[in-house]
């Protein structure tokens, strides 16, 4: 049984995640994103970006492992092995680019139990090294009750 006392809490900020140029290229290739600003530094700079830019869903690649770390912590009491992803949203306050150092704070927004399932909404606030907001992601995660 997940511990409802976590609802409303913000977890400790993550260690900074350094966005790698090659990681963005690898991700763009994996999803078939062909835009040159995602793979070519010169094209990205010509378009006004400091380095290659990440496709919109890239943020989940570094927020999901942080979520996994929280959900596998026995303190919360979540059955990670039977979890499915219910929904996902991503809001980008600015593009993510190579060289960004991003810190994520997980907010435990909602927890409910319906129809034999626990439903958990987690929001991740992602900021750069200067503290400016970069992205907000929200995931609805479901596991058997």
């Amino acid at each position, binding site marked *: 049984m997940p511990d409802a006392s976590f609802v409303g809490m913000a977890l400790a900020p993550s260690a900074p995640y350094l966005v790698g140029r090659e990681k963005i290229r690898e991700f763009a*290739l994996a999803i078939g994103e062909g835009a040159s*600003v995602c793979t070519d530094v010169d094209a990205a700079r010509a378009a006004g970006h400091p380095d290659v830019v*990440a496709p*919109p*869903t890239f943020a989940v690649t570094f927020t*999901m492992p942080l979520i996994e770390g929280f959900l596998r912590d026995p303190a919360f009491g979540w059955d990670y092995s039977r979890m499915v992803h*219910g929904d*996902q949203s991503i809001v980008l306050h600015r593009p993510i680019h190579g060289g960004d150092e991003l810190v994520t704070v997980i907010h435990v927004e909602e927890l409910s139990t319906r129809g034999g399932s626990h439903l958990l909404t987690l929001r991740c606030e992602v900021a750069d090294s200067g503290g400016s907001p970069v992205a907000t992601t929200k995931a609805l995660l479901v596991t058997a009750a």
Partner: protein
Amino acid sequence: MSVEKGPVEKGTELPPLELRVTRADLVRYAGASGDLNPIHWSDRVATGVGLPGVIAHGMLTMALAGRFVTDWAGDPTAVRSFGVRFTRPVVVPDDDEGALVELSGKVTDVADGVAKVAVTARFDGKTVLGRAVAEVVLPA
């Protein structure tokens, strides 16, 4: 965004796209995203948890739908937000054909230089993403 596709307004349809997702694509996405859940590469584990077989990462399906929108926009950074519900799994067979995913989309609203695009993703004739909506910043 290129001008030759004409004005973007409510009702504008995006050019549809058909994609094939193979096991090799799942392996590549697993590595690129760090999502190594074995239901996305092991039939033994996938069927063991009651799935018909290996399924695509929901986030891969979302990323492909996102790419469909960024292709249309002509700029990956034009997508300001994107949200989906994962309604059905995309089952990916262990063959050279893979799973066929059909993407279509329509502009449902334009306000303050931002177009709302509703995306439909189908596999096996059924939608696999629900409430898939992207906000796309239009060129000034």
